[in-house]
């Protein structure tokens, strides 16, 4: 008879820390923890010693001091007596502005170039391939500087608009393209509802959001009707009316007027000034990232199997509808994840503003403020914190959208 006995219980031996896979990972992690602690201690100790030797301390008090420098492109009130914190806020808003603008235009460029690259027109597809290769293989910094140079060195100065035989003239008497930037008419309200410009724009925004919800409701109803009767009611006119009627009425009540830029003294006055650095940065980021997005769009469309297109055509859909109803919804699932990282890249690349003097967060907080106050560690840390937060928020928002278009599987 054989009897089953438990294997002898092994007692813990020191060599098991290396040789036994159950304990080895603990050993390694303990070593890693000690190494990390030592490294942090070493770096922190160096930091403290260096700061003491230089007579510095870590303090964020400088943020409250007057900044003492001017920012010419800004979205909120700011003058040289404002604090460094306010300068940083101006920078943050400027970063967000250029990142948002560039994301929109880069997507437009990218989608157009990506779709055209698959065109069966030989010349067009080759042109788009050249566009993509050229812009992808040359540093974005060089593009920003080239476009900034065009803006400043090639565009006419304001004085060339002067006099009877001026060498330059305004486009339609509304837009002025000068080496200092582009001047466009600015809308304002003559008899606003509240006497406050900001509040009036909030009203406009509220009306737009209301119209959006209304059109959504109308479309949902149309879909319901279609599901019941099989015939989709024509919603185009209703939707147009929902958008336009309240909007036009509002504009009429509030008295919309345009402030047209005019040449006064040595420069243009009035209207909205879009500075040369902003345009250079915006346009360069758009065409550069557009080339990358074009490749993503092309890969996404090619990832949709040809059978899908053929099946849709066999159902009798027109090419337009095949694209909108069958190919694009499937391609979007492939396109969106890399698109998120391109948006992140735009946001991060907008930090190159410092090369052309656009007052984004890197140029205000990381540039002039850092140089004036000498608070290198505090400024760089705040800068990193801002970009980390922005990156996280963008990827969170896009992941939510990505989840909503995801293939619904069991």
């Amino acid at each position: 008879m054989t009897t089953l006995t438990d294997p002898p219980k092994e007692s813990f031996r020191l060599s098991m820390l290396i040789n036994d896979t159950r304990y080895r990972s603990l050993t390694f992690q303990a070593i890693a923890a000690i190494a990390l602690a030592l490294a942090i201690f070493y770096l922190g100790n160096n930091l403290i010693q260096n700061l003491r030797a230089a007579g510095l301390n870590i303090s964020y008090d400088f943020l409250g001091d007057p900044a003492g420098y001017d920012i010419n492109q800004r979205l909120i009130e700011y003058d040289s007596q404002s604090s460094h914190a306010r300068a940083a806020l101006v920078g943050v808003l400027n970063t967000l502005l250029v990142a948002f603008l560039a994301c929109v235009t880069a997507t437009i460029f990218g989608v157009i170039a990506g779709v055209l690259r698959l065109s069966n027109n030989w010349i067009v597809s080759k042109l788009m391939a050249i566009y993509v290769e050229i812009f992808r293989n040359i540093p974005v910094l060089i593009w920003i500087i080239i476009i900034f140079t065009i803006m400043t060195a090639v565009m006419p100065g304001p004085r060339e608009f002067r006099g009877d035989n001026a060498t330059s003239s305004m486009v339609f008497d509304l837009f002025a393209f000068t080496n200092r930037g582009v001047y466009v008419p600015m809308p304002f309200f003559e008899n606003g509802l509240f006497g406050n410009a900001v509040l009036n724009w909030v009203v406009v925004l509220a009306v737009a959001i209301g119209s959006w919800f209304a059109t959504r409701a109308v479309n949902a109803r149309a879909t319901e009707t279609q599901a019941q009767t099989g015939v989709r009611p024509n919603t185009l006119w209703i939707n147009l009316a929902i958008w336009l009627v309240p909007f036009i009425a509002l504009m009429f009540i509030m008295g919309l007027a345009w402030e047209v830029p005019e040449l006064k003294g040595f420069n243009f006055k009035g209207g909205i000034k879009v500075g040369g650095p902003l345009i250079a940065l915006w346009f360069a980021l758009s065409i550069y990232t557009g080339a990358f997005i074009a490749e993503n769009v092309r890969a996404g469309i090619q990832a949709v199997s040809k059978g899908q297109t053929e099946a849709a055509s066999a159902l009798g859909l027109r090419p337009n509808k095949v694209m909108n109803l069958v190919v694009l919804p499937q391609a979007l699932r492939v396109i969106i994840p890399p698109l998120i990282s391109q948006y992140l890249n735009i946001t991060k690349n907008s930090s190159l503003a410092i090369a052309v003097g656009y007052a984004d967060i890197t140029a205000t907080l990381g540039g002039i403020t850092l140089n004036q106050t000498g608070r290198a560690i505090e400024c760089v840390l705040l800068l990193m914190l801002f970009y980390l937060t922005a990156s996280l928020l963008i990827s969170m928002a896009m992941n939510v959208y990505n989840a909503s278009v995801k293939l619904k599987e069991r």
Partner: protein
Amino acid sequence: MADQDNNSIAFVATEVIPESPPPARETGVVKWLRENLFSSVTNTILTVLALGLIYLVLKATMPWIFNGLWTTSSLAECREILDGTTGACFSVLTERWNQLIYGFKYPVEEYWRPNLAFLLMLVAIAPVLFFDLPRKLLIITALFPFVAFWLIWGGTILAPLVALIGFVAAGAFFQTFGRSNFALGFFGAIVIALLVWSLGGAMIPEGASENALLPAVPSRDLGGFMLNMMLGLTCVSLSVPLGIALALGRQSNMPLIKGICVVFIEFVRGVPLITLLFVASVMLSYFFPPDATVDLFLRVVIMITLFSAAYIAEVVRGGLAALPKGQYEAADSLGLDYPQAMRLIILPQALKISIPGIVNVAVGLFKDTTLVSVISMFDLVGMIRGPILASTEWNGVYWELFGFAAALFFVVCYGISQYSQWLERKLHKGH
């Protein structure tokens, strides 16, 4: 099918009619044009628009390029000769060629050193890029960093020699003990290398660089496209191993190591390179010992390497995740331990999948080396924006200079991406 009377048929062809050529519109150029350019109204409009665009671009650039001057000594002279006609002033390139390539401080009589280093680089890189070359050439690749360092920076030959000996000793130790016990070999090799370096460093006599064979050139004198090449090459080659290590760490099932890697990767990927360069230029020296002066070049290399390592780690992680689970299980069932499984089975396949991604990161990194001009290092872009455009002779020649910079980067980056596509085709085993 009743009986057919041949006589009732009026005409019978007795010979085969020769094949006629297809109609003109269905063959050759015409067919190609009809199918590719004018297949529909929209297509025709697009074609016409594209042709118009090409015409406009060529009309603007061709006279400018072919009318270009190459031998004047200043912009004013150039404009005088051109006398109002369109034409480029490429003379800035010929006159400032040395500055564009080597920066404006590198001693002229030492230009042969970077040149030689560049040639050696081509030889050293060849066996890495093309697997058909004899493997013995890899010895040159291994020696290249030390030789190139000595050539470009000059100074005493003892410094690179000590570094080399440290690596050789570590390699020998790993060869002897690493086979049986990876951990012992690996950590022992690190200890040996550190030992050799500290001992050797102490033995280099004070002032050995003063009357060395090659005069020492400080890092701040490096510049131009040479600086871009050096930063790009160094950082890529350093960040690939680091990135692989980070990727393996991120895939590890040890929570602490995984956590460190995740935090590092996500942090670095979340901030722009410029902020890391700011760290290198204004902040990093606070973290070194008070008496150490760490060269700006080295600080920049550290930060760019960390930056691209995080991106490479994500690419390699994708490759590791794309491998079928069976490969991991096969390695386990063969009785391989973790280092062996990784080295022999997992990493070769994962890296093959990751090649396009790694090359993308490398190209991006090479382009990003232009950002060092923001922290006032005089790389190619820094040279153009700084000393050259500020000089009285060449103030105002934007197109030629930026066109040159763009062309230089385009050639290198396009070359790298074409190589990666060739490599992908070559490594593709057809399954």
